């Protein structure tokens, strides 16, 4: 029998390993350009055909590969860049694994022409699917000319997963731009199907490179960052706080000239801009961090986007300080400082007030508050909790009563449940009274039109049945039906009862959400009044609710607008003077892919060629808000959200900006009738718990919270 386990031959191993490094044409471009950079090139030319499917060619004027080394370069882990493992910690070159070339060669048809200054003649090497097909001398200038054709021709599974030409090209151009920004001293060009897409001048001025990629307008708003501290050097450009985007997509970081993604550095940027930008807005930055290679570990991921710092907090802090300094020097900071101080003071005073409660209570309080904000479960839980105590009180009463009436109960228990129920009601003294009391309370509450149990886990039996289909609902009546005969049983029952109770509560909760009437309880809140003419205080089934009147109204208006928008779309205002915008290729691509969406929103967008789009019409309903900002925000939103096909999000976004305007503001006096009406309207909305911007609309302070706060329990 032949053995089943065999060592893979080199070729297959390379193909598999290629998957790690070579995911798509853009990865090839990245590896090749980085090789060219490591070879000390001053000019790199990238040619792409059909989004890289057909051809990727990278041509440089670097040092080339010596004749004898060419073939070696295609061996796995062959590299000129490190010699031993310890070198990994002081990498100065971009590539080092020696994986790139064999990986690329394994999945495509590669032709390399290269010549060093020492060699008089260059060598040509042709490798197909990892197999050497041709090697000969060839006349050429010093440098390397690397052609990759028919990528993934031998791995159809991967080929299948290539995206459209525009998508792949977008990825390539993205990588290209990022590398170009890291290497302003290198003149780089990118062409696609013979058409020039990007060209950087190679003047060694980052500004020139930014200009060539992002256009004049952005360059005008750039501030220079230059800061060095604790052996960390931060340099580059940031935008002044008036220019911002709604995602971090436009933050480009380089660590030791290598493009990286780093949430750490992003955080440093955020801190630098603290209080200067509107919420959820991010600056555009091009920052380069230089640090002794010993303190950076780039060997985290084969694609080398991630880095690890040995002292992350220092790096982050230096970035923050560098940005602060740049903003300060541009005189953009001082006016905002006092604001921060005031805010600090306010938050301090809040903390002091809070410390009136004991620490654990604060936490308790906070969690219950935030829970009730997050969804109903929290409120449910707190209600449950208070009810549970209630129930156990009931249970213990039933226990001591049990002793008194056990004889009676036992005799009755032999009869049918129904009679027993009646019997119990009529005979079981204190318990019965208590039940009666509760029923009375219920009736009373219903008359007052706010049923303390409606829609909650601890429902009266009819309600519980109607919500949960009677499945798990074991309200008080059923417990009475099975009225137990002994202490032990009674105790057990009491436990079981609470358990089941909790179970039924959750059940109802689920059904509740399914029915999408999470707001139904709001309609039954009784407004008590306003605080600071900003917050509505309303009494509810359990404790009270605090609602922010502005966001309450905002939510209502928002859903009204959504309704009209869904049916009619937005009217489109044609512009007399079209708006011309310079965007990145990726943005342009996003616009092209979503042209139908822009149409529906009322935008008429035209691609003018190159990096320019022309907007000929804008949504007519949005006035007072700069058209350009709105447009860019939507583009960012599409870029950020892969499921932009789900247009609802975008409509939502657009309409959010509208609904905010008409809403009543903080500080407006509201009459009782107005408050009741607001609560009723709110209860009908789809999501009465959060405003369209994601801020909470209400929070709940339960009776239990109050009891705890006053140390009554």
């Amino acid at each position, binding site marked *: 029998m032949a053995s089943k386990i065999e060592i893979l031959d080199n070729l297959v191993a390379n193909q598999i390993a290629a998957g790690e490094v070579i995911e798509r044409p853009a990865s090839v471009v990245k590896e090749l350009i980085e090789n060219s950079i490591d070879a000390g090139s001053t000019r790199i030319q990238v040619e792409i055909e059909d989004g890289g499917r057909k051809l990727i060619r990278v041509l440089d004027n670097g040092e080339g590969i010596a004749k004898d080394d060419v073939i070696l370069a295609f061996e796995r882990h062959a590299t000129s860049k490190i010699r031993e493992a310890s070198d990994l910690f002081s990498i100065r070159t971009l590539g080092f694994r020696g994986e790139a070339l064999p990986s690329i060669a394994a999945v495509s048809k590669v032709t390399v022409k290269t010549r060093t200054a020492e060699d008089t003649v260059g060598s040509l090497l042709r490798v197909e699917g990892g197999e050497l097909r041709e090697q000969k001398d060839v006349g050429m200038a010093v440098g390397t000319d690397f052609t990759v054709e028919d990528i993934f021709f031998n791995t159809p599974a991967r080929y299948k997963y290539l995206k459209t030409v525009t998508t792949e090209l977008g990825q390539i151009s993205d990588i290209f731009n990022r590398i170009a920004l890291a290497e302003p001293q290198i003149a780089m060009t990118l062409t696609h199907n013979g058409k020039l897409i990007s060209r950087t001048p190679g003047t060694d001025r980052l500004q020139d490179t930014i200009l060539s990629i992002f256009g004049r307008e952005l360059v005008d708003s750039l501030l220079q960052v230059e800061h060095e501290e604790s052996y960390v050097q931060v340099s580059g450009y940031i935008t002044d706080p008036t220019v911002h985007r709604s995602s971090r997509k436009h933050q480009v970081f380089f660590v030791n000239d290598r493009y990286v993604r780093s949430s750490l550095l992003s955080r440093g940027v955020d801190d630098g801009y603290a209080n200067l930008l509107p919420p959820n807005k991010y600056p555009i930055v091009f920052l380069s961090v230089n640090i002794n290679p010993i303190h950076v570990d780039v060997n985290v991921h084969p694609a080398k986007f991630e880095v690890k710092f040995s002292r992350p907090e220092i790096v982050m802090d230096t970035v923050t300080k560098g940005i602060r300094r740049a903003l300060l020097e541009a005189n953009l900071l001082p*006016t905002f400082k006092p604001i921060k101080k005031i805010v600090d003071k306010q938050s301090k005073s809040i903390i002091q007030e809070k410390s009136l409660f004991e620490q654990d209570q604060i936490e308790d309080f906070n969690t219950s508050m935030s829970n009730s904000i997050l969804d109903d479960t929290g409120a449910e839980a707190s209600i449950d909790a208070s009810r549970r105590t209630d129930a156990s009180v009931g249970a213990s009463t039933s226990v001591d009563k049990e002793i008194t009436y056990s004889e009676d109960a036992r005799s009755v228990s032999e009869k049918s449940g129904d009679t027993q129920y009646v019997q119990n009601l009529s005979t079981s003294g204190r318990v019965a009274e208590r039940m009666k009391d509760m029923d009375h309370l219920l009736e009373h509450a219903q008359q007052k039109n706010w049923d303390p149990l409606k829609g909650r886990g601890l429902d009266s039996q009819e309600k519980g049945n109607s919500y949960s289909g009677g499945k798990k609902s074991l309200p008080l009546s059923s417990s009475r039906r099975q009225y137990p005969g002994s202490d032990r049983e009674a105790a057990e029952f009491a436990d079981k009862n609470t358990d089941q109770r909790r179970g039924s509560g959750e059940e109802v909760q689920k059904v509740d959400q399914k029915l999408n009437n999470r707001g139904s309880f709001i309609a039954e809140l009784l407004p008590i009044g306003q605080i600071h003419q900003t917050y509505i205080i309303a009494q509810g089934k359990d404790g009270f609710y605090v609602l922010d009147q502005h966001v309450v109204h905002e939510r209502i208006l928002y859903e009204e607008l959504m309704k*009209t928008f869904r049916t*009619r779309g*937005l*009217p*489109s*205002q*044609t*512009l*007399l*003077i*079209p*708006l011309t915008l310079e965007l990145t290729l990726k943005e342009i691509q996003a616009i092209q892919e979503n042209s139908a969406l822009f149409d529906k929103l*009322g935008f008429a967008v035209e691609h003018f060629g190159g990096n320019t789009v022309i907007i000929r*019409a804008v949504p*007519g*309903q949005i006035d007072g808000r*700069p*058209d*350009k*900002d709105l447009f860019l925000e939507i583009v960012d939103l599409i870029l950020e959200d892969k499921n932009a096909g789900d247009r609802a999000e975008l409509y939502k976004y657009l309409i959010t900006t509208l609904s905010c305007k008409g809403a009543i503001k903080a500080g407006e006096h509201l009459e009782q009738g107005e408050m009741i009406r607001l609560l009723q309207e709110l209860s009908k909305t789809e999501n009465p718990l959060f405003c369209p911007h994601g801020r909470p609309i209400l929070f709940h302070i339960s009776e239990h919270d109050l009891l705890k706060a006053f140390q009554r329990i």
Partner: protein
Amino acid sequence: MKFKISQKEFYEGIQIVQRAVSNKNTLPILSGILIKVEDTRLKLVATDLEIGIECYINAEIISKGELVLPASHLSNVIRELPSMTVMVQCDLQNKSAEILCGHSQFTINGFSADDFPILPKIEDGTHLSINQPLFKEIVEQVKIATSTDETQPFLNGALLRIVDNQLKMGSTNSYRLAHREAIIETGIDEKLEVIIPNKTLDEMARLLNDDQEATVNLQFTNNQILFDLENITIISRLIEGRFPNYEPVIPKNSNTFIKLNRKELLQAVKRVSLIAAANSNIIRTTVTNGQMILESANSEIGQAHEELDIDMEGSGVEISFNAGYLLDGLKILDTDDVQLCFSGKFSPFILRPTNEINYTYVVSPLRS
């Protein structure tokens, strides 16, 4: 420093310069008005560094000097004083002013005049002199279409051009456009092109007067413009940037021309827009068989329908647009009749007065 002045004249002077007072708090001294007592008259100055206004008023001078007083308090106090002679006596040492009028007495603390920015003197540059009421009319007609969109700063003002003997002024916020041409007598040789900011246009419209004999002198440099009225000087920064070449936007080949009473149209549009207001202010206009129909509809509120008799040439047309934009144009004109020229459903249309005034107001349509 001490002077006597009539309450009325003092208050008028304060009002003239007050609009240039800065409402930002960055430089406290800019929230004040500089009062400079010269040989025979009083000079009031205010500036927010974008625009500066100087105004001379007559007063009985007792002793010279200068002091900056906070504009809002000074203005409030002087406004409420009885219409009598006001005596102002300043203590330059303590930087305070004592204001006496009838039985009233105020002491207001101010700032040293040395810290107040000196308005730049424009010495060179191009001069131009225009009849005041004409220039006022031009400014008023053009400023209505300016933009306030801060992302396009060059549209936040009006483009003033002098070509040969012609003055051309235009503005647009991309949704509508206003353009005015006029022949001016004292032409200048060189070509001139400047963008005057919104706020300055507002001040011009306010301060220019209707006296047929009066003229205003304009003086330009690269980045500043100076308007010299009789006793008032306004100096303003110009907007940098390139104003779009908007003239090609004005449709040349219209195929529907209608003439109708301006007031009737204005009132009809106003009424129809009552329903339209909740919905982008969008109204639909149908021009057909000597009639113009204006309609608006809102599924929640209801509908509006107006019919107007018109003189009509060319084919019928149906077009939707923002009623507010048309209203602005109609309000600024004063002719009995106006002309509207349409070039199709999705093309901008033109509003013109029916007199000899060369004014063009263009509104871009809405698609719904």
